[in-house]
């Protein structure tokens, strides 16, 4: 026994060394073994806690990147959400939807849906930019309508973009009429409130009441007859023999997302005929 103890004393360093190395190897191999690796890995309660604490510290090192990732995901989700919302509104409160469907069914008109990529409504010469252009068949002088009413008229096109002069442009002039009345007038905007436009050239003898619908007259190839523009919000006499009518616009220009460009199939033919007619008059 004494010899054994002396043996241990002499070789104690080496024995401790061997024991520790064997213990390490046992740990290495039991850890690699899926069945037994439950005590000394990060799924262990104690180490899990430690990681949690560590993460509160190390988390700061990657905060910037995490922030960036989150911001990117946020913007992606926001884009998705807004387009989903736009689509929902498109089908829910779409007062022009049935009209458009009827027009499209008649075969004379077709529609190009475009996204509004830039807009302004606070200047006096406002313009919209759409993400579709001549490559999608859009040409200048085409009508543009939104979910809840007329938007404006295309003024210029490039292959993939087009510029629209909306109703909210002091040089815009749209031929309209009060629904169920034959008298037409001109819808103009004076550059004041983006929610209202003025209806001019309606004689005082026409009975126009608050709440009457204002629709396109159809006296051009741009808009078919009867497209919803807005509602009469105020009607009264002006100094001349015409009424002063304020029209509450159907379209909210402050939150335009998707619009439809109206393609009138026979527009070139009508235009040609009109030109021929004026030519003959001149001769």
């Amino acid at each position, binding site marked *: 026994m004494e010899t054994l103890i002396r043996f241990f004393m002499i070789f104690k360093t080496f024995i*401790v060394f061997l024991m520790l190395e064997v213990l*390490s190897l046992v*740990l*290495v191999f039991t850890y690699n073994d899926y069945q037994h690796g439950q005590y*000394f*890995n990060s799924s262990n309660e104690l180490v899990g806690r430690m990681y949690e604490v*560590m993460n509160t510290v190390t988390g700061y090192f990657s905060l910037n990147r995490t922030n960036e990732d989150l911001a990117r995901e946020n913007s992606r989700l926001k884009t998705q959400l807004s387009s989903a919302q736009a689509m929902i509104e498109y089908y829910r409160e779409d007062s022009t939807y049935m009209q458009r469907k009827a027009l499209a069914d008649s075969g004379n008109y077709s529609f190009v849906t475009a996204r509004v990529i830039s807009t302004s409504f606070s200047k006096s010469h406002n313009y919209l930019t759409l993400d579709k252009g001549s490559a999608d068949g859009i040409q200048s002088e085409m009508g543009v309508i939104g979910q809840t009413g007329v938007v404006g008229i295309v003024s210029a096109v490039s292959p993939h973009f087009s510029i629209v002069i909306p109703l909210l442009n002091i040089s815009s002039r749209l031929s309209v009429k009060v629904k169920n009345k034959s008298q037409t007038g001109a819808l103009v905007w004076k550059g004041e409130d983006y929610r209202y436009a003025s209806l001019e050239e309606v004689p005082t003898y026409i009975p126009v009441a608050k709440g009457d619908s204002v629709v396109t007259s159809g006296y051009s190839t741009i808009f078919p007859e009867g497209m919803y523009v807005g509602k009469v919000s105020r009607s009264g006499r002006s100094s001349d023999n015409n009424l002063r009518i304020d029209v509450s616009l159907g379209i909210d220009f402050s939150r335009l997302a998707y619009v439809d460009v109206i393609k009138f199939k026979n527009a070139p033919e009508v235009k040609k005929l009109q030109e021929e007619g004026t030519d003959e008059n001149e001769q």
Partner: protein
Amino acid sequence: MNSKIILNYGWQFLAYLLVQVMVLNYIDFMGVATPYLFVLFLITLPTEISTVSLMLIAFVMGLIVDVCSDTVGVNAFACVLMSYLKPRLCKLFAPADAEGEAPSFRSFGKGRFFQFALLMVLVHHFCFYLLENGTLIDLGGTLFKAFESSVFTMVLICCIEYFKYRHNR
């Protein structure tokens, strides 16, 4: 050794561990090199400490680093081996008047300490990477990683030791 010195080493132990598991473990320089600076604590423990105590300290320290980096047993093995060899290497490199002192630039001399530390680091890193890989597949890649990490660790060790050297002078 009085209690003040032991307390001082206790703080160092914690500091090296914290820096290792919270910062250095996350460095993956060019995809191959991670510095294992905590071995410097074991390297610079005074030579008067018995080899058994040294190995026990090394085992505990290695195991803590292991548990935090999911390499259980690997660092412990490498650290115990390194500590077992430490007294023998000390005999080789330590000058006669540095008996029982903590290895450093000052006690060993710059060149001797560098060689001593380099050997210790190489033992630890090659042992660690070979055992961590566990196979002889891509042996060249494993050895390259061990070498790269050794260089990285040595650079850090030299910086710290040089700073200590200037500070204590």
